[in-house]
């Protein structure tokens, strides 16, 4: 050897032992690519907002599904017979006609219950349109018969219609099928809308993450270059960038869950406070297990979307370098 070195073995050992203690206490394994707090904090806010929208949109779909189920089930196990007073027809009184109808319907197999809607109930139904008062006595109000059927053995509706027509030509059997299909059209539109919002929030999140990642790559250009030159694979570098987005996505998602739960609690409070005939058709915003499961998907989904987007962006950008 050309160079001579004067080594003090005792000093070396002492140093080493001191070092070992020091490292044991201090080595933390810092992240190679540090998170950028100045960009990540606003990013957390924006992604949390996107997650909140996604939560509301997804929850709306679940609520619409439940409402449609409730409605179509409730309606398809119920029929209504409407008997309109016909001007000039005085051969049989309306009361008698109703009695006849009830008799026929009750005798029909598959019908579990048939009863006339009381005057009070009818008035209540019409109140939002006509107001409270004695108007009903002066108006030719149709008489309504509410029929509950056994859905496992439904009555022959065609035959029932025919026999009703014989005794009362102005009687109309309404099985709500038309009503059902209108509800479904409306519900499908709302579902489509909510799903579109869900997709848009995901697309927006991805766009934001692409921008943030590109900014991060520019800011950390020196580190990326050194990592390359000492032999890091692209995937290693991508992982360094991804890691910060895992926790960012999770945190944003949980913030959004909290916001969504709060919103539903408020909505639930409003509905139960003002629940009456005016809003009876509103779906109940109770949180079911399926809602909680869906909400839990939000942070996971946000972390996944952000992480994959970052990975894809990093690989694309550094793939163009040497």
């Amino acid at each position, binding site marked *: 050897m050309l*160079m001579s070195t004067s080594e003090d073995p005792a000093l070396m050992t002492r*140093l080493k032992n*001191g070092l*070992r203690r020091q490292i044991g206490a201090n*080595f933390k394994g810092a992240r190679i690519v540090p998170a950028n707090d100045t960009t990540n904090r606003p990013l957390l806010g924006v992604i949390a907002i996107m997650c909140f929208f996604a939560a509301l949109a997804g929850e709306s779909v679940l609520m619409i599904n439940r409402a449609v189920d409730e409605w179509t089930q409730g309606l398809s196990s119920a029929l209504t017979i409407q008997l309109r007073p016909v001007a000039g027809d005085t051969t049989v009184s309306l009361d008698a006609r109703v009695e006849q109808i009830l008799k026929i319907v009750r005798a029909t197999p598959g019908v579990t219950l048939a009863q006339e809607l009381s005057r009070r109930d009818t008035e209540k139904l019409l109140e939002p349109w006509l107001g409270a008062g004695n108007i009903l006595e002066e108006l030719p109000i149709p008489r309504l018969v509410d029929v509950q059927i056994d859905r496992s053995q439904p009555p022959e509706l065609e035959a029932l219609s025919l026999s009703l027509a014989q005794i009362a030509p102005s009687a109309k059997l309404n099985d709500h099928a038309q009503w059902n299909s209108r509800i479904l059209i409306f519900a499908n539109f709302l579902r489509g809308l909510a799903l579109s919002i869900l997709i848009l929030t995901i697309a927006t999140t991805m766009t934001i993450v692409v921008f943030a990642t590109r900014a991060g790559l520019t800011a950390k250009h*020196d580190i990326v*270059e050194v990592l390359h030159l*000492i032999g*890091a694979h692209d995937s290693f570098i991508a992982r360094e960038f991804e890691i910060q987005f895992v926790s960012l996505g999770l945190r944003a998602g949980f913030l959004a869950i909290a916001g969504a739960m709060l919103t539903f609690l408020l909505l639930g409070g409003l509905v139960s406070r003002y629940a009456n005939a005016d809003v009876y058709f509103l779906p109940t915003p109770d949180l079911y297990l399926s809602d909680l499961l869906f909400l839990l998907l939000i942070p996971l989904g946000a972390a996944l979307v952000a992480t994959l987007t970052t990975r894809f962006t990093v690989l694309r950008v550094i793939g163009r370098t*040497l």
Partner: protein
Amino acid sequence: MGAEILRDVSFHLEPGSFHFLTGASGAGKTSLLKLMYMARRPSRGWITMFGQDLVHLPRSSLPEIRRRVGVVFQDFRLINHLSTFDNVALPLVIAGAHPNDYREDVEELLTWVGLGERLDAKPPTLSGGEQQRVAIARAVVAKPDLLLADEPTGNVDPKIGQRLMRLFFELNKLGASVVIATHDEHLVQKIAAPVLSLENGTLVKRPPAAKGA
């Protein structure tokens, strides 16, 4: 395209050889090393390393070759927010090593370059010479097959300079080829190693300036 810095450059490094790369400032030493550590591709000509054609190699194959090359960059290129220890350990971390497996090696190496007390220091708090020693430790820690050092003793006093050179000799004894770029004629005079000299874009080979080795 600007002026051509390297024109007529042709050389072969045997495994286990030790060379100086000299030339005035601006002669193209750093540029030549950059071609060798694959920070640049040549606009013409070819380079083979470890039997691989560097010019046409797909970039996905570069990391495996780069891991066999240790580089002391002229501008150090340490990662400022990482401790001295973490900077030196970086090549091992990238290769997937576990901290328990490299902790002692890294400590020992940093002690050897005289930074045993500065394991937790961040590069910005170190002097130029200290940063250079960290850069050298990082270049040799993974025991590369080829060591490229760009002015590695430029910022340290002669005594530490000798110590650092010793590190390169140790690595060379383990079988690594070593190329040390320097414009320090003193260093070249003292050590018996063949010299690659860049002059006007061409490479001239000279025998060892000193006797020995």
